[in-house]
């Protein structure tokens, strides 16, 4: 078969065009890489210059007014790096130095810029802005951060849930629980850590977490049980015991038994003993572990009863009868 239109001239043209496109692509990649390296190098140099100034500003007592003015008035690329370095130290310090750093960022107009970025069309820009607002923890931004938990982009709602740890209270705890209830694709660890932070810092948030044990949604009950276990208040042991005893969901029972392993006390023994009879193996194991975590003289009768039952799943974990008090 012959192709009369396939002339040598056409072949050469096609080959030259293809090669030119390949070379252009390589050139564009190299140029973009070089630009990126240059930007990173320049950012590193600016960071190296900003870091010692920021550290001195945070630690000096009293603050050198000249240093404060230098940092407050920094603009352009250096100003951006100053903002980044100031925000970075907020992660690590408490006390007067932190308050001073927040005040400087406010003077630099940084929160206003972040609020604008929190309305960006790009999810990653919104997420970065919300994360930074969480670091600043200005009361004026609490509503904005709470609203961001309902953002359509999971990356933003996840960052907002984490940031709410800086705004503890009933409304913030509720926003995190609502997110969980809606089944949003937010990592469980983020939700739990946010609630732990809030429960530690605020009684109203803690009360809301306790109410969550009665939520119609199992994943909310389980998360609240886990959080109460992490907060390690023995006052919650009766609530968790009730949850272990009555909740119809294996995941919730497991979370309740796991929490009791941390906050259990003598009053929880009957619920834990019931837990060792659960139809679900992991719940039986967790309940036994919680019994074993109690003082041996408190748990001995329950452990003896578990031993009498001869559950093959639990037997390997049980202490020898001779090691139980009163044997």
């Amino acid at each position, binding site marked *: 078969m012959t192709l009369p239109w396939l002339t040598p001239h056409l072949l050469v043209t096609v080959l030259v065009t293809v090669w030119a496109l390949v070379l252009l692509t390589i050139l564009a990649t190299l140029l973009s890489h070089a630009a990126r390296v240059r930007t990173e190098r320049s950012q590193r140099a600016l*960071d190296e210059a900003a*870091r*010692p100034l*920021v*550290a*001195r500003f*945070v*630690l000096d007592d009293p603050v050198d007014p000249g240093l404060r003015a230098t940092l407050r008035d920094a603009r352009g690329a250096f100003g951006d790096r100053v903002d980044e*370095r100031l925000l*970075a*130290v*907020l*992660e*690590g*310090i*408490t*006390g007067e*130095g*932190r308050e001073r750093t927040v005040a400087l960022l406010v003077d630099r107009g940084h929160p206003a810029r972040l609020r604008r970025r929190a309305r960006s069309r790009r999810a990653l820009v919104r997420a970065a802005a919300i994360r930074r607002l969480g670091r600043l923890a200005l009361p004026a931004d609490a509503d904005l951060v709470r609203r961001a938990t309902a953002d359509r982009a999971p990356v933003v709602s996840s960052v907002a849930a984490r940031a709410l740890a800086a705004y503890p209270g009933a409304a913030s705890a509720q926003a995190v629980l609502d997110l969980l209830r809606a089944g949003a694709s937010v990592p469980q660890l983020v939700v739990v*850590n946010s609630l*732990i*932070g809030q429960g530690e810092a605020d009684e109203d948030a803690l009360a809301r977490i306790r109410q969550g044990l009665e939520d119609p949604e199992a994943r909310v009950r389980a998360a609240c049980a886990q959080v109460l276990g992490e907060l390690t208040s023995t006052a919650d042991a009766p609530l968790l015991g009730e949850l272990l005893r009555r909740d119809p969901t294996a995941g919730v029972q497991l979370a309740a038994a796991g929490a009791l392993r941390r906050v259990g006390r003598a009053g929880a023994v009957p619920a834990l003993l019931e837990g060792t009879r659960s139809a679900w193996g992991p719940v039986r194991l967790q309940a036994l572990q919680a019994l074993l975590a109690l003082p041996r003289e408190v748990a001995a009768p329950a452990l003896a009863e578990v031993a009498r039952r001869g559950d093959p799943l639990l037997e390997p974990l049980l202490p020898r009868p001779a090691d139980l008090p009163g044997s």
Partner: protein
Amino acid sequence: MAHVLAVDDDPDILELVALKLRSAGHTVTTAGSGERARDVLAAHPDIELAVVDHMLPGMTGVDLVRALRAEGSALRVLMLTARSQERDLVGGFSAGVDDYLTKPFSPRELAVRVRALLDRR
């Protein structure tokens, strides 16, 4: 006043820790990783105390302390740890950590704790 090693992969926190301890009169050497810290300690046998971040990439703070204790080092160690890692501290103490401070921390408290650990000599 003592020679102190500060180990943290976060350069901003490292700068703060070093500056605070220097302002308290100590000589401070810094390292950005557990591996680098071991090199620094080998090169500076006069270092009496290390402020070590718990979550270092690669060799963690606890790994570093465990390795030092295995070599018979009596270096005093103050560990910086995030609140969510407090539970891991049981492992840290059994590895040979002398004291810990939870991040975020007060720079003043850091200096006081370092002083207290050094006074134990």
